C-alpha cells in the first residue's frame, strides 16, 4: 500500500460505522439501486439531517456513508483539490466515523467524493465517483415546480432545454453555458451533471467507473452506471465544445488539464495551475526524479 494512504486504527466510539444507522443506509442503498436501474432518473430519498449543513455536501456524504465498506479507500476533493477546507472536513468526518483508509491519489481510491470536478486521471472499473449536487433538476430554472418538472421528465419533453441553448446561440453566437451543462443519459433522461465545468462532461461518457449523485437538501439520488452513454446537449451545426486553455500548467507543465487562475500580485499578475492537485503533484514529483 502506498505511503499516501493514511490508515486509521478504528472508528469513532458511540457512532455506527460511517455515522448513519444501518436502517438508513439500507434506505439509501435501495434508492441507489433504483437510480442505477434507471440511469439519469432522479430517485427521491428520505435525506437525513447530517452534522454538516445542507448545501455543503450532505447528499454526497449520505451516498458515501451508504456504500462505504471497511476495505474501501476514500478520496475527497472539492474544486479538484484534496486540501480545500470542505474536502478536508468531509475526509476527516469519514476517517473519524468509519476508520477507513483515506488517500489523495485518484488511482488508489475506491470511492471518490467530489464537488465540482472529475479527476483528470481516468477512472477505472470498480471505482465509484460520488458527486455532491446542489440542484439536481436540470429543468429547475425553466420551470420551478416539482410537479411540472417530473411530468416533463416522464414525457421526455425537453424542448424547453433546447430553447435555452437556442437563445445562447442567437445572442452570443455560441452556447454560453459553462458549467452544470445538461446531458442526456442513455438516450432517455436529461440530467444535471452537478456544477462541474463542461470541460469534464466528456469524462462522464462511457466511463468505466460507477457515478452516483447525491442531493441532500433536495432529497434526490441519481446515477450513471459504468459504460453508459452520456451526451452533452447541443445542435448538429453547433456541436458541444469544451473550454481550451491556451497555456500549460505553470507548475507541472501539463496541457489539456482544467486550470485554476491564481492572482499572484496586485498589479495584474496571473498564473494558471492544475485544479486537480493530485495529478499536478504527481507530475511535479516525477519530473524532480
Amino acid at each position: 500500500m502506498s505511503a499516501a494512504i493514511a490508515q486509521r486504527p478504528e472508528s469513532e466510539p458511540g457512532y455506527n460505522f460511517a455515522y448513519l444507522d444501518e436502517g438508513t443506509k439500507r434506505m439509501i442503498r435501495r434508492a441507489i439501486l433504483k437510480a442505477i436501474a434507471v440511469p439519469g432518473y432522479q430517485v427521491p430519498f428520505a435525506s437525513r439531517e447530517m452534522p454538516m449543513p445542507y448545501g455543503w455536501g450532505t447528499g454526497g456524504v449520505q451516498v458515501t456513508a451508504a456504500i462505504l465498506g471497511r476495505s474501501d479507500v476514500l478520496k475527497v476533493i472539492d474544486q479538484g483539490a484534496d486540501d480545500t477546507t470542505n474536502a478536508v472536513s468531509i475526509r476527516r468526518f469519514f476517517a473519524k466515523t468509519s476508520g477507513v483508509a483515506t488517500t489523495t491519489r485518484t488511482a488508489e481510491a475506491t470511492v471518490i467524493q467530489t464537488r465540482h470536478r472529475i479527476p483528470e486521471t481516468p477512472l477505472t472499473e470498480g471505482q465509484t465517483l460520488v458527486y455532491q449536487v446542489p440542484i439536481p433538476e436540470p429543468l429547475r430554472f425553466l420551470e420551478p415546480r416539482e410537479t411540472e418538472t417530473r411530468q416533463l421528465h416522464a414525457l421526455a419533453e425537453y424542448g424547453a432545454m433546447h430553447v435555452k441553448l437556442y437563445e445562447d446561440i442567437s445572442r452570443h453566437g455560441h452556447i454560453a453555458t459553462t458549467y452544470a451543462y445538461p446531458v442526456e443519459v442513455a438516450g432517455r433522461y436529461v440530467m444535471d451533471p452537478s456544477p462541474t465545468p463542461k470541460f469534464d462532461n466528456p469524462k462522464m461518457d462511457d466511463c468505466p467507473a460507477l457515478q452516483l449523485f447525491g442531493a441532500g437538501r433536495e432529497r434526490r439520488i441519481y446515477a450513471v452506471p459504468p459504460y453508459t452513454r452520456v451526451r452533452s446537449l447541443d445542435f448538429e451545426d453547433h456541436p458541444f465544445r469544451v473550454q481550451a486553455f491556451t497555456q500549460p500548467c505553470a507548475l507541472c507543465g501539463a496541457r489539456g488539464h482544467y486550470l485554476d487562475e491564481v492572482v499572484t500580485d496586485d498589479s495584474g499578475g496571473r498564473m494558471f495551475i492544475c485544479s486537480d492537485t493530485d495529478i499536478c503533484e504527481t507530475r511535479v514529483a516525477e519530473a524532480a526524479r
Partner: protein
Amino acid sequence: MSPPLLSAHGLTKAYGSRLACAGIDLDVTEGEVLAIVGESGSGKSTLLSLLAGELAPDSGQIRYRMRDGQVRSLADLGPAELRRLMRTDWGFVRQDARQGLRMAVSAGGNVGERLMGLGERHYGRIRGQALDWLGRVEIDAGRVDDPPSQFSGGMRQRLQIARNLVTAPRLVLMDEPTSGLDVSVQARLLDLIRRLSAELGLAVVIVTHDLAVARLLSHRIAVMRAGRVIETGLTDRVLDDPEHAYTQLLVASVLAA
C-alpha cells in the same frame, strides 16, 4: 364524405351546482372555421378548455381523426400521446398572449420551441423556419432575437399564431384572439387569420363574443347560452336569419349598437 376531424358528444361540465356545459354535441370538418359565440358566462370558454383537453368533462367524449386516419377518443390517449398531439397537430391561440408565449424568450425561440420539442437539432434549420414564419405573420425579420415583452399587442398575437403553425397543425383553437386590440390592429389580425386558414386548409374553432369577428372568419356558427348550444348553422344564415329568439336578440343588439 369523410368523417369529421373532431367530434364532441354530450360534453358536460359542472362547477358546483352550475352547469357550464350541458350535453354539447359538435362536429368540425377539415378546413372549416367554426365560431362559438355567446355572452360571457355562456360556457363558451369552458367548452374550448374541454376541447383542448385542459379540463376533463364530467361526461361525454371527444373523438379526433389522427393523421394516420384512425379516429380516437381523446380520453383513451395516454398523457404522452395527448401532449404530442397538442403540440404537433393542434394549436391553441390564447386571448392573453402572455399565457401562450414565453415572454423572456426571443421570437425565434418561441417559434422554434415546438420544432425542438419534436427533436429538431439543427440550429440553422430552426432559425430558418422561424424567420420564414415571422415573415408569414408579417413580423420584421430584424425582430427575430427580440423577446415578445418588447412587442405590441397585435405583434404578440401574430407571434403566437406563428408559434402554433410552425408544425403544420390541422386544428387550431382560438380564444378571443382579437379582443383588447385596437380596431385597426384587429382588422389586420383577422385578415391574417383568414388568409392563413384558407391557405393552409386549417380547421379553426374560434371562441368570440364579437359577431363581426364570427361573420368575417367563420363558415359556421354555434350560439351558446347558459351552457347549451341553442342554434347552429352556416354563418350567413344564422346572422341574417336567426331562428332562435335569443339569437335574434343577440344579432339585433349588435345592429342597434
